[in-house]
């Protein structure tokens, strides 16, 4: 046997390694912030949170770790995993290496949905964001076709146009909402993790997003074949319609929920799957779990930067991701998509 064949051992090993990295990074992220805490204090705070043990850590440090930093890191993990898997899913669904919830305007659609819900009841925000995401990707998919085929550049342009249109609507809505915390909205729109939901809401958020990731993983083998085209995939035994529907719903659910709690953070869904492909190869059966974990790692790192570089002030994490993501997007545009378009034209 010469070339590497994907094995279960390999998948488990990669996931354990990435989980280890995520754990260490998250612990390090608990140490830094407006007040730097020693590792021992953080460990004691976590221990007291877990067991209810008293007196091993100051109340102030305990509160910083458990009520401020930990929820925010957990949120970063959930959002990072959701957006990365959504990006990987959209890339296969649309057969476009540059597809990503942000680039396609799906994040804007979700944000618009969430904003709309504020006129009714803010508890509806996640559901409204999901609907916004679904409607946007449907519109972009429709607009991105030429002669009943997805055209790579047309699709991207459709996404950009839809995103800018939706941004216009968002600004329009903000006019009516301007009595409220406008700076908070602006931060939220740029992508911000500074307002994590309450513990129970966070638990639900995590579970539903885990379910969405599991759904994408369920069709991972099919997605590998979908990349070579729908006819091809069907001839190889893929239920194309079902696979597309699963990814369409799951990726939009993940995006919608992520946006409803964190605003529209760009480029994670683009950057992370490509990094994972470079390191671990493009088989979706490894890519999906690896992208989820790597997305969490990238988001925790980005958010830690966002809240420390200008401490005690904060940047929205979306700004950090955009600064890092835009150059990578340009690089991919000039290499991967060019190669992909050539391949399609040949």
């Amino acid at each position: 046997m010469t070339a590497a064949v994907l094995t279960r051992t390999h998948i488990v090993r990669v996931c354990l390694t990435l989980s280890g990295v995520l754990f260490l990074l998250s612990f390090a992220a608990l140490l830094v912030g407006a007040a730097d805490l020693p590792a021992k204090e953080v460990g004691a705070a976590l221990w007291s949170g877990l067991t209810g043990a008293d007196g091993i850590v100051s109340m102030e440090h305990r509160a910083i770790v458990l009520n401020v930093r930990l929820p925010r890191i957990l949120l970063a993990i959930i959002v990072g995993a959701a957006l990365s898997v959504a990006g990987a899913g959209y890339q296969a669904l649309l057969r476009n290496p540059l597809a990503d919830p942000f680039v396609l305007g799906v994040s804007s659609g979700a944000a618009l949905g969430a904003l709309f819900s504020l006129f009714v009841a803010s508890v509806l925000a996640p559901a409204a964001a999901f609907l916004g995401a679904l409607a946007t990707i449907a519109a972009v998919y429709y607009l991105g076709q030429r002669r009943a085929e997805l055209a790579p550049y047309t699709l991207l342009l459709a996404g950009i146009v839809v995103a800018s249109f939706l941004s216009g609507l968002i600004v329009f809505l903000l006019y009516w909402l301007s009595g409220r915390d406008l700076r908070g909205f602006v931060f939220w729109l740029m992508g911000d993790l500074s307002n994590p939901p309450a513990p129970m809401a966070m638990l639900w958020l995590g579970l539903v997003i885990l379910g969405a990731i599991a759904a994408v993983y369920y069709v991972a083998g099919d997605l590998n074949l979908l990349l070579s085209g729908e006819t091809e995939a069907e001839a190889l035994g893929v239920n194309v319609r079902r696979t597309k529907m699963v990814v369409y719903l799951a990726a939009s659910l993940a995006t919608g929920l992520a946006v409803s709690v964190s605003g529209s953070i760009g480029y994670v869904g683009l950057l992370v799957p490509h990094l994972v492909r470079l390191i671990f190869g493009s088989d979706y059966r490894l890519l999906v779990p690896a992208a989820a974990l790597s997305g969490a790692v990238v988001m925790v790192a980005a958010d830690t930067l966002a809240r420390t570089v200008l401490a005690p002030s904060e940047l929205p994490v979306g700004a950090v991701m955009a600064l890092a993501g835009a150059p990578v997007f340009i690089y991919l545009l000039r290499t991967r998509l060019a190669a992909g378009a050539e391949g399609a034209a040949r």
Partner: protein
Amino acid sequence: MSEATLLEVRQLSYAYPNFHLGAVNFSLHRGELLAIVGPNASGKSTLLHLLAGLLEPQAGAVLIDGRPVRSLPLRERACRIALVQQESPLLFPIRVLPFVLQGRHARLGMLGLETPQDVAVAHRALDITRSGALADRLVQELSGGERQRVVLARALAQQPELLLLDEPTLHLDIGFQTELMRLVQGLARRELHGIALVTHELNLAAEFADTVLLLRQGRPLRYGPPAEVFERELLEEVFATELDVLVHPETGRPRVVLRPEGGGAPEPKAD
């Protein structure tokens, strides 16, 4: 065994806006190589997609071992019928062995990973197509001929009974064309696949096919052994150009050549 009917096509028709295919009738035996020929836009690829069960016939039937192909569950269909399309665009880099293993997809569980048996089948498919040495290469880096063999290997990894090929010799030079056709013919003869291939290369069809189906604008004009289909008047009319049909002195199979401009009346067929 080799005479057993694998595929039966009865009164098959299909329609797009401004295009109608049909009614097509033929049967294909195990071990038989059928060439589907005809001018551009004569419905050859559409017919191939109908045979693969990817399109629902407007009327008539495509039966594999007596069962309508469209009634087979998707995965079972992929285990029995393999289709090699003209081009397989690839979005991301992939190595040859994992690419060929995609042919095993229909035989895996939902989250299944390939077993050593699947890998063995893939290696055998690579050996049959004489591309075993390519296993580690990136598909994107292969030459046209290598790539065509690898795509064929993926189809063979499906272990199909029916193999459908859409212009497998496209973009190949004459050396690769003959090599590929010998390979395909060998698959029919030795592995007893039933094979239907679409081609523009009339002489390759004449040399290697057992039967030929000639289509024009969706209408089947003639079906039979190459010598019966490749008739000068018929081909001249279908392809709207002046041709001669000669007979190869050794094989007795027909050869289609251009008639020189200003050439007089064609010589009668050589004996």
